[in-house]
């Protein structure tokens, strides 16, 4: 494997270059629009890193168990907040589970991965003790109910982030 290198800043800047620094919106009162164009990098760390690599490379959803309180967290945290323990026991959970709750946003912003309606589900995967929030798809928002069985639909092209799961869809209606 070639040695890993971080993305150079120069490549990152190309993604954020604005066309103008200031635009004067009003002279009196004096109001100007300015820019703050920055590119950031974030390192997932070993725990989130493994979670996303498993999604990307194996379509596996992994949780982690805290030995002290026994909680299986999905997604996995680096530290169990209530016990202040570093969990180390990885467990694979099922790519399906129960819809605990849901909502539907009838507006969308540029940061949203899909256009309206944006349907969110809170999913308790089989084997997990915590809920995962994700998108629901292939579903009529009016037909949703808590307790519905749902399963993960993975994207064909996966990049190592939470959207490698395209969405969750109801099992029966698939």
């Amino acid at each position, binding site marked *: 494997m070639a040695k890993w290198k971080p993305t150079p800043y120069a490549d990152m800047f190309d993604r954020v270059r604005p066309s103008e620094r200031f635009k004067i919106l009003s002279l009196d009162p004096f109001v100007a629009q300015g820019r703050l164009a920055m590119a*950031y990098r974030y390192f997932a760390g070993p725990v989130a890193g493994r979670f996303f690599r498993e999604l990307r490379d194996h379509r596996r959803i992994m949780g982690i168990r805290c030995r002290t309180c026994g909680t299986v967290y999905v997604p996995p945290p680096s530290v169990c907040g209530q016990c202040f323990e570093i969990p180390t026991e990885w467990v694979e959970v099922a790519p399906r589970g129960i819809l605990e709750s849901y909502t539907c946003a009838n507006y969308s912003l540029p940061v949203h991965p899909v256009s309206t309606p944006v349907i969110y589900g809170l999913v308790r995967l089989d084997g997990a003790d915590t809920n995962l929030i994700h998108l629901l798809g292939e579903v009529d928002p009016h037909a949703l109910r808590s307790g519905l069985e749902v399963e993960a639909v993975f994207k064909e092209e996966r990049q190592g982030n939470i959207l490698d799961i395209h969405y969750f869809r109801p099992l029966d209606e698939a």
Partner: protein
Amino acid sequence: MGDRVAIMGVGQTDHRYMRPDVNHEEMIHEAVRLALEDAGLTIRDIDTVIFDNMDLFEGHYLADAMTVDGAGMYLKPGLKMNTGGTSGGTAVATGWQHVASGLFETALVVGWQKQDASPSIGSLVTAREPLYDRELAAGAVGIFATMGLQYMQETGCREEHAALARVIMADNARKNPHAHLKLEITVEDVLASRVLVWPVRLLHMSPTSCGACALVLGSEARARKGPKTPVWIRDLETAHREVSVFRGGCVEPRPQVSAIEVAAGRLYRRNGITDPAGQIDVWELYTPSSWALFHWMELFGICEKGQAWRLVEKEAIRLDGPIPIEPSGGVVSTNPIGASGVIRVAEAALQIRKEAGERQVAKDVKTAVATAWGAGSWIVMFYLTREA
């Protein structure tokens, strides 16, 4: 004033240019765990957590919320501080006030920064007024350039003296296992390094570092039960200057008013300090550039105006000298900004405990001053002692 406050525990990461191996929370957790171990406490013994970083550097608003578990804040009361370069100092000051008030017996202070997330200069320039001088600002480097130039013009100081100050700090940093830059450099190396903003050269400036530092503060009753010798934060002082001087690039026609001088004057008067150089055994000044050192030494009253470069020339600031400054290697060797103010206090505490290893100063350290500086005009300073 309520209770006396002691430092019970100290923990810090090894500070590095990049930490791609961990995320924010994991890096913070390393320091928190070490500080608790050092204090002989568990997270259950901590009454409140004071947390600091500067969000813009990681591009991560609410970084405190995202790192609650690792920082040990889960369901605990606490505050997040963000006051620029002084953030770490402000966090320690806030922790101190929480314990001194008698409301909390213990406080965990956590400062950190992960500067591998962005080019920090982009964030730093936003510390400037957007319409008046952001497009002229040269970040922090420009401030030290104007300071250095002014100092050379008004005293006999030459570029070699600032370079020697940098070499002394590097010599200390090589003895500090946590330091980021452990450079083996000479005065000639510094003078040959690339000019950033003249007379500030690359080697005069603090690096961009990743790291975290945590302190456990406790009331007198708690601190006396701890496994380590308590180090007392006897007093602290802060002062802020009006921002317009900053807009003017930290240069104003004489006479200048310095927040450092005002803060130091108040703290010294309250504590009967009439001869700072004689009464303070070690100094951890927040010196982001070796060019700032001369100003700091004079404003903190370590020597007369215009004389600091002579003390540096005599190498009086070395670990075995009469006025040891920056035994840790200082901010020019290690600068995870949000942690830097906490590290200054941590180092002063380690020096008083005589746990500073190879970088322990030769003097018998009974007193120390640690500071945090930022935004061209803000100062937080601490007076630490071995005796209660």
